[in-house]
């Protein structure tokens, strides 16, 4: 799955996702990716977020919407991402998942759920401060 957030110079926030879903899924199964608020969410007055991972679990918690609402309240994007991961951890401690967050000032962050074999999450960032699109990594919580 790819989830993407773009914030333009004027502050316009757009988000998107694309995926082919879970391998060997039962025909008709849809995960979190195409669900606004789960797969991704964008509000130019607050920020954007996008999720990837086990969509069957994650979609129930609307992590992208919740992260944007945390950023609306002033929470730093990295912390907002961590908070939504923590909310899911309570019910599904071993779920596979990660979230990226960005607010309207261009600050960004990411978070992921630490499970055996998945202890770091890599994501890409492009901004005027970076000479070219850069791969960044975050330690899971």
């Amino acid at each position, binding site marked *: *799955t*790819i*989830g*993407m*957030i*773009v*914030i*333009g*110079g004027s*502050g*316009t*926030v*757009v*988000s*998107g*996702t*694309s*995926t*082919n*879903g*879970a*391998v*060997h*899924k*039962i*025909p*008709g*199964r*849809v*995960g979190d*990716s*195409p*669900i*606004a608020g789960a797969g*991704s969410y*964008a*509000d*130019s*007055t607050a920020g*954007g977020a*996008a*999720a990837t991972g086990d969509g*069957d679990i994650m979609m129930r918690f609307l992590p992208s919407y919740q992260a944007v609402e945390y950023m609306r309240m002033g929470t730093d994007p990295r912390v907002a991402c961590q908070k939504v991961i923590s909310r899911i951890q309570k019910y599904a401690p071993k779920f596979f998942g*990660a979230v*990226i967050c960005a607010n309207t*000032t*261009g600050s*960004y962050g*990411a978070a992921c759920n630490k499970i055996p074999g998945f202890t770091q999450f*890599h*994501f*890409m*960032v*492009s*901004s*005027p*401060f970076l000479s*070219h*699109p850069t*791969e960044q990594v975050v330690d899971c919580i």
Partner: protein
Amino acid sequence: AAALPVVINTWAFKKAADTAWGVLQLGGSELDAVEKGCGQCEIDQCDGSVGYGGSPDESGETTLDAMIMNGNTMEVGAVADLRHVKNAISVARKVMEYTKHTLLVGESASLFAVRMGFPYEDLTTQKSLSVYSEWLNQSCQPNYWKNVIPDSSKSCGPYKRPEKVTYKEEQISRRSFHNHD
């Protein structure tokens, strides 16, 4: 705002990031950047988790899900279980721009896509077929069933609910009950 514009995407999908950033540099809109950026992964089949030829379902078919959201207007376009059409996020954008709906699903979404000018193609590849046949040869493990018979952790289906006998089976047993001298 000096830190804007910004593009951030999941996983180390560098070409997708390059594509989105390039669209912005050439004066394209944020919607264009997300569509083309995610669309790049649909072309590149990033990680086998995006686009055609990946993640075959229980019948061996690849289907796609995608969405796009405009944070200025809060408009959303989305497709789910999209069949036979490769450009999922572009179809999602067409849902946003040419309908008052938010989400179209399944074969109906494919018919909408064809009407919007997208080609109707087979999303299966040699790779997805081999992933599928290998899965069949391993008793269909892993799968997403539970509480069914036969035991879905040990064998393929078709599966059914254990506690309730199906209607047909009831009929057969009732008929044999009367079927006596």
